[in-house]
């Protein structure tokens, strides 16, 4: 709300500069966002929390300033407006009046008042009134409308003036709209209503969306002679629903949905009527008041020891009582420790003891509450096992030269389709604000490819990226599943500075990252199997298993998908299911004595058929050698040159070791020969 410093001073003595006032209000919970000079005035932009609708008016803010500074409120004198038929001040339809009021929805409109003022002169507002409205960001319309707006800001009670002669049958009916009923509101827009919405209608059609906006046809115009001034209370939830359904929030609906002070209705109506008589002449007619006064708020008991226990400082009973008195509460001590409090009618937010404690703390000043350190309360682990593992995965991958990315969990349906990730189990968002957030990602590949594209388009082509995040699925309509996954993507060249030659990244660089990660996390018995997956090229796609448990998939991303993502480079990617991986992780490390005796290393170079896999050869070597073989790994793989077509040259490095003695060449020789024989006989390989 825009708060004019000069206007506010009408209601309270202020001896503070606008800046100091701003600070005072901010520290009391009325956050001042900015202060602007405007001529000889300053306008404070204040943010009012939804629990304090009583602050949504100048008198409300002045009341708070009064509580903070000890100054007295100066409420404008409300002369009871002389009514043509003052006997009708309460209750029912006035017999002499042509205007009639009927409330069909007493729940949604427990109180409705209408004041008739005849023979008004609609015209321009005086300068002071225009200035007031300008200060709060409103433009002047005419004196009648301006007065209703002025009173809304002064009192917090929204008012509306109808052109009485345009009300069909001179009647006001507060009812629900019928479905499809239409009204053109004063902003000139035709609104289509439904039967959840409350309207003010005449004997034919709606003349206002109750509490939200008046109708164009019955608005006060230069031709208007007689007016009906509405001041009412509408149900907050109903107004909120209507305002949201129509996507129409007004100064009026904003206040009604936060609850206006029912005890203020008549006073606000009187104030407006008085101003109308002053500025637009006219004669006050009948005042019709339908519905009931609200019941008084309930009393609240405050325990002073509880107050001190919650805020952590001993506020003296007299200080607490004076704070509460300054806020307009009636304070009645019940015992040494307990005081009974009666909140003023405009403080609907005060319902429980804690609300009172907050008020004391607020005015006492948060800055006056000391700082203490809470006791250490968690003796156990500070990180859950999941969090420890996440931290490990991130740390290891970063050490391996990968950079972490975070991509959106919500994607367009099209992106998910392009990434070949769509399916029946994909979760849709019911209320996306753009088609970029239609569905939840069922896999991380789309985000990975999106980030790769973004970088390649900006000439960063050598990328090693990973993302650790949730993927989402549904099972049926009411069961949703989140699965944490790890995605890795690599593309471009690997460099060795100015010493070596750059080379293109391969599937085996990706596989190496995964192997290093797994090894570091104590994951053993890892194997890969050829696999078919729509994301990957069928020629190089593998399922990664740990002890026959499929934990992930990796491969070369299908060129067709890359084309759909506008990526021209080769990309290798993997996705690993972290929940499955969890079962195989063992971060416990145990010391093992290093071997006391040196090992013997021997190489074997063979030529073998191209279709024989490395895994077959290694397992044959291991089987044949038995325990004495510590390790066998491929160290070279080559074709061309002297290698015949369809064959491949392979070199394996074999490490033999005996834990109990130094091996001699002669110890190894027999086994080594046996291995060569096995390779020749079982796999048709030839020694080179």
């Amino acid at each position, binding site marked *: 709300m825009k708060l004019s410093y000069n206007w506010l001073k009408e209601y309270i003595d202020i001896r503070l500069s606008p800046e100091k006032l701003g600070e005072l209000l901010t520290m009391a919970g009325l956050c001042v966002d900015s202060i602007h000079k405007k001529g000889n005035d300053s306008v404070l932009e204040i943010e009012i929390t939804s629990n304090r609708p009583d602050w949504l008016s100048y008198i409300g803010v002045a009341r708070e300033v009064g509580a903070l500074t000890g100054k007295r409120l100066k409420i404008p004198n409300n002369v009871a407006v002389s009514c043509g038929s003052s006997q009708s001040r309460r209750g029912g339809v006035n017999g002499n009046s042509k205007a009639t009021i009927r409330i069909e929805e007493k729940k949604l409109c427990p109180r409705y008042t209408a004041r008739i003022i005849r023979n008004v002169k609609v015209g321009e507002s005086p300068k002071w009134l225009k200035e007031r409205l300008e200060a709060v960001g409103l433009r002047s319309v005419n004196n009648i409308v301006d007065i209703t707006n002025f009173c809304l800001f002064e009192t917090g009670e929204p008012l509306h003036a109808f052109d009485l002669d345009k009300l069909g049958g001179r009647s006001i009916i507060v009812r629900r709209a019928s479905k499809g009923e239409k009204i053109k509101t004063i902003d000139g827009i035709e609104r289509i209503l439904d039967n959840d919405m409350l309207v003010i209608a005449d004997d034919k059609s709606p003349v206002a969306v109750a509490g939200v906006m008046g109708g164009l046809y019955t608005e006060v115009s230069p031709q208007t002679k007689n007016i009906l001034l509405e001041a009412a209370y509408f149900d907050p939830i109903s107004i909120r629903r209507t305002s949201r359904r129509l996507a129409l929030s007004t100064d009026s609906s904003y206040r009604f949905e936060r609850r206006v002070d029912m005890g203020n209705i008549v006073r606000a109506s009187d104030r407006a009527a008085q101003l109308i008589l002053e500025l637009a002449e006219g004669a006050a007619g009948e005042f019709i008041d339908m519905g009931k006064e609200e019941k008084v708020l309930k009393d609240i008991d405050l325990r002073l020891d509880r107050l001190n226990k919650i805020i952590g400082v001993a506020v003296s009973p007299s200080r607490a009582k004076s704070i509460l008195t300054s806020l307009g509460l009636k304070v009645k001590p019940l015992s040494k420790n307990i005081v009974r409090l009666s909140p003023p009618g405009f403080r609907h937010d005060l319902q429980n003891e*804690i*609300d009172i404690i907050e008020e004391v703390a607020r005015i006492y000043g948060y800055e006056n509450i000391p700082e203490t350190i809470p006791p250490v309360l968690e003796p156990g682990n500070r990180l859950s096992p999941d969090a420890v593992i996440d931290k490990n995965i991130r740390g290891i991958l970063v*050490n391996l030269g990968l950079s972490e990315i975070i991509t959106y969990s919500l994607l367009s349906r099209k992106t998910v389709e392009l990434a070949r990730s769509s399916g029946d189990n994909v979760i849709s968002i*019911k209320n996306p604000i753009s088609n970029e957030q239609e569905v939840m990602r069922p896999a991380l590949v789309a985000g990975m490819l999106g980030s790769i594209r973004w970088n390649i388009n900006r000439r960063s082509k050598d990328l090693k990226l990973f993302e650790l995040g949730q993927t989402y699925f549904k099972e049926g309509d009411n069961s949703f599943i989140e699965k944490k996954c790890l995605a890795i993507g690599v593309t471009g060249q690997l460099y060795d500075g100015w010493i070596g030659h750059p080379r293109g990244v391969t599937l085996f660089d990706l596989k190496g990252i995964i192997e290093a990660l797994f090894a570091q996390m104590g994951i053993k018995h890892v194997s890969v199997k050829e696999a078919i997956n729509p994301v990957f090229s069928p020629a190089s796609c593998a399922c990664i298993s740990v002890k026959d448990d499929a934990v992930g998939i990796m491969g070369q991303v299908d060129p067709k998908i890359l084309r759909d993502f506008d990526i021209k480079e080769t990309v290798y990617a993997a996705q690993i299911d972290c929940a499955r991986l969890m079962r195989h992780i063992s971060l416990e490390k145990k010391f093992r004595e290093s071997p006391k005796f040196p090992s013997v290393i021997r190489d074997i170079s063979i030529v073998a058929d191209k279709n024989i896999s490395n895994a077959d050869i290694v397992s044959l070597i291991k089987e044949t050698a038995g325990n004495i073989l510590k390790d066998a790994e491929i160290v070279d793989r080559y074709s061309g040159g002297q290698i015949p077509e369809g064959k491949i040259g392979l070199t394996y490095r074999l490490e033999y070791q005996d834990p109990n003695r130094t091996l001699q060449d002669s110890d190894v020789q027999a086994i080594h020969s046996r291995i060569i024989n096995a390779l020749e006989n079982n796999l048709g390989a030839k020694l080179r």
Partner: protein
Amino acid sequence: MRDKIREIEKSAVEEITLAVDADALEKARVKYLGRKGLVTELFKNMSGVSPADRAEIGKLINALKETVSKALDEKTPVLSGGSDSGAQKTDITLPGIIREIGRLHPISKTIEEICGVFISLGFKVVEGPEIENEHYNFEALNIPLEHPSRDAFDTFYLNDKWLLRSHTSPVQARFMETNKPPFAIIIPGKVYRPDATDASHSFMFHQIEGLVVSDNIRFSDLKGALTLFARQMFGENTRMRFRPSFFPFTEPSAEVDISCILCSGDAAQRAPHKCSLCGGKGWIEILGAGMVNPKVFRNVGYNPEKVTGFAFGMGVERIAILKYGITDIRMFFENDIRFLRQF
């Protein structure tokens, strides 16, 4: 013979010490240790020494040779810049071969840092689901249906009941339902709100939530813990301001500001010179906090007469933006490697 040895030693050391270039040094080497050098000559003359003295004289000559060699060795690098003067010189100005180091995403880094501060205060890290239901996201936290307090929590829905959590606070309720006080937990995670994306809004962002519950937790404890946090995060000289605010799940509630990290609040005094970060206010809001509302305790089955607690929540992106001076929230999710490599 002994005198001669002493004489040679003296003159050799002197010549070597005074040598001004590699040439002079080389000459000295030849003069003393060369094939016809003075020390070499001494060895040749050993035959003339009496057998009784031979062992001792031999030792002395050896010692002399050692002394001269050492003196030469020590002087050589000083003059020639290397003992291996014949080898190809290395161009030491060539750059080192750098192994690329990966980076944590600045959001992960910030989360780790924030959690680290609270872990050191005795908090435990807890996580919860991103897909939530109305109950945990709203009702359990005293945010009634169709209430203006929901305005702050625009929410993505999956169906009538299920939604994407619009804050990390639902994990509070979930944790309390299955755990007994005392505890101190910190909850990092993604949250979602249907906001149009621009430089300062994102429909997905990260929050960190803290919750401490025990039999005697006070507002002063909240102030103490958060002040420690802010000083660790933004520097020892950071000033803090707790101002009253409203959140449905805490009461009393506070919004917490730190002194502007750009102008330290000085610009506020020097208006109209306005700071680009705080707009001349001198303060920047970093988090919301408060004492757990007794209604929330009752909703999870705690007795609010027996326990009290505080809770706080902050946006990770906001903290990272302030800490690193990042200008656009979208950068976090573009994953531009030139951006990522800066952290």
